């Protein structure tokens, strides 16, 4: 019973942190975009008490710290319009589906480790350290495409439909390259003599020395590009290309349902950045070849903070790329996926199969 309570508390903390991260990524998106475009960004929203503190209050206001709260409230209180021409059931279902995979995948993402001071035993800080971690992540993540397909279809009008069709084709195409690009990592983790595992925690343990991004740069690059495509971020945001498709699959959505899509996208980005960190950038190891000395609470805090820092760097990268690069044309996206990424990932897989064979003997 006690253990169950502990797990529930732990899960609640993770969800709250994830949601806060999503909210503040929206703020980061607005601030970084304004910085890139030479604007100021949100700097007016303020809270009655904290905002009127001397020095700190105006500073926080200018940073836009209170903006996410205002944004969230706006989504809650706007009028929720359900157009007459939609298929009601799927129209309501789609935004719900968009958030569920993002929140489910986070259960298998380890975000640090705890070393007992006396015994030196290490336990991962993760909600569920399952043996098929990466596959679970891909499996549940692949269900996310239904939210877009159903939203596009249920809206029963042209542009959302086109957006949904484009998105599903794109996500299927890039899933292949994504799956193949992580295989070399797991071939090394499962090399002969090792315990067979697909757990994300063991991948991080295997990176105490060299990080995988350093000697598998092609894998890391393919995976990163695929994450961009899977999260529908620019330059791959075919699903909601506003110059061609109005709002894409969420054209007909308003208020809180739109908010759910919005939060779902950012949650996907947070999880994507976290997985990239775990697989290729050493997880919570601050530097390659740096032996881990800290134990107890201190060590756990340092590991979680290192991991969060690296994941947030990827959030910044997502935003940076979005406001820097123009969008691909749809046929270019498809050609990149099938004619470049897929062959490249297969060649990469074969090359590393040979390299790992020779490294191992």
């Amino acid at each position, binding site marked *: 019973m006690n253990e169950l309570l502990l797990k529930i508390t732990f899960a609640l903390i993770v969800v709250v942190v994830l949601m806060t991260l999503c909210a503040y990524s929206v703020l980061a998106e607005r601030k970084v975009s304004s910085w890139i475009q030479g604007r100021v960004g949100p700097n007016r929203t303020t809270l009655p008490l904290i905002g009127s503190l001397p020095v700190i209050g105006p500073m926080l206001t200018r940073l836009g710290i209170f903006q996410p709260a205002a944004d969230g409230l706006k989504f809650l209180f706007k009028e929720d319009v359900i157009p007459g021409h939609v298929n009601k059931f799927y129209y309501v279902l789609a935004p719900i589906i968009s958030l569920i995979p993002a929140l489910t995948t986070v259960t298998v993402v380890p975000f640090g480790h705890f070393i007992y001071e006396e015994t030196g035993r290490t336990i991962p800080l993760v909600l569920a350290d399952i043996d098929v971690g990466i596959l679970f992540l*891909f499996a549940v993540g*692949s269900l996310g495409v239904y939210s877009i397909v159903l939203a596009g279809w249920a809206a029963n009008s042209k542009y959302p439909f086109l957006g949904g069709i484009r998105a599903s084709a794109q996500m299927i195409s890039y899933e292949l390259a994504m799956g193949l690009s992580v295989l070399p990592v797991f071939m090394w983790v499962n090399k002969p003599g090792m315990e067979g595992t697909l757990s994300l925690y063991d991948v991080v343990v295997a990176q105490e020395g060299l990080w995988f991004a350093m000697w598998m740069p092609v894998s890391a690059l393919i995976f990163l590009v695929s994450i961009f495509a899977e999260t529908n971020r620019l330059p791959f945001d075919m699903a909601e290309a506003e110059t061609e498709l109005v709002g894409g699959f969420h054209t007909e959505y308003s208020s809180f349902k739109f908010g759910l899509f919005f939060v779902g996208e950012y949650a996907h980005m947070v999880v994507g950045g976290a997985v990239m960190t775990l697989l290729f950038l050493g997880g919570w190891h601050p530097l390659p070849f740096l032996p881990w000395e800290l134990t107890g609470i201190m060590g756990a805090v340092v590991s979680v903070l290192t991991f969060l820092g690296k994941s947030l760097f990827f959030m910044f990268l997502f935003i940076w790329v979005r406001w820097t690069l123009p969008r691909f044309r749809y046929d270019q996206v498809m050609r990149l996926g099938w004619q470049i990424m897929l062959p490249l990932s297969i060649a990469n897989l074969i090359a590393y199969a040979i390299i790992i064979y020779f490294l191992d003997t």
Partner: protein
Amino acid sequence: MTDFFFYLFSTIALASAAAVVLSRNTVNAAMFLIVCFLSMASLFVLLEAYFLAVIQVLVYAGAVVVLFLFIIMLLDVREDAKRKLSPFTAGAGLVGFAILVMGIIAVVSSDSIKATSEVLPEPSGASLKAFGNELFTTYLLPMQVTGFLLLVAMIGVIVLSKKLQEPEEQS
């Protein structure tokens, strides 16, 4: 607890499978198919075959049904009006059903399923390494044959969908 989950997920799987066949709206049918696959994956989890469960979701629920939906939406299949069954279809359906029932009866009543035999392989679904080893040593032939079948199906689709042009005379 396990028993309860077994009955729960089996019921969901059977009910949604029936709904796939019975629903007139094709999108509904596809969605019920996903529910069916997900509950089958849960049954695999109850059997401690985690790898199979995850693969079930990844391949069937995650990729195959997306393609189904894709085609349904592209072709814009409308809700079917009540169609008259042709006698040929009905007959073929009955024969198929009879063969299926006979197959199930044959499998269930055979002796090898009742007695726990000595040669039963180690339960390798839980350990990935053992699973992979079994797949590529003991069960290599079935795996290769399955792969070959998929290749045949793929080539068949390409042949069927590509209009073969008459070889033009070279000038």
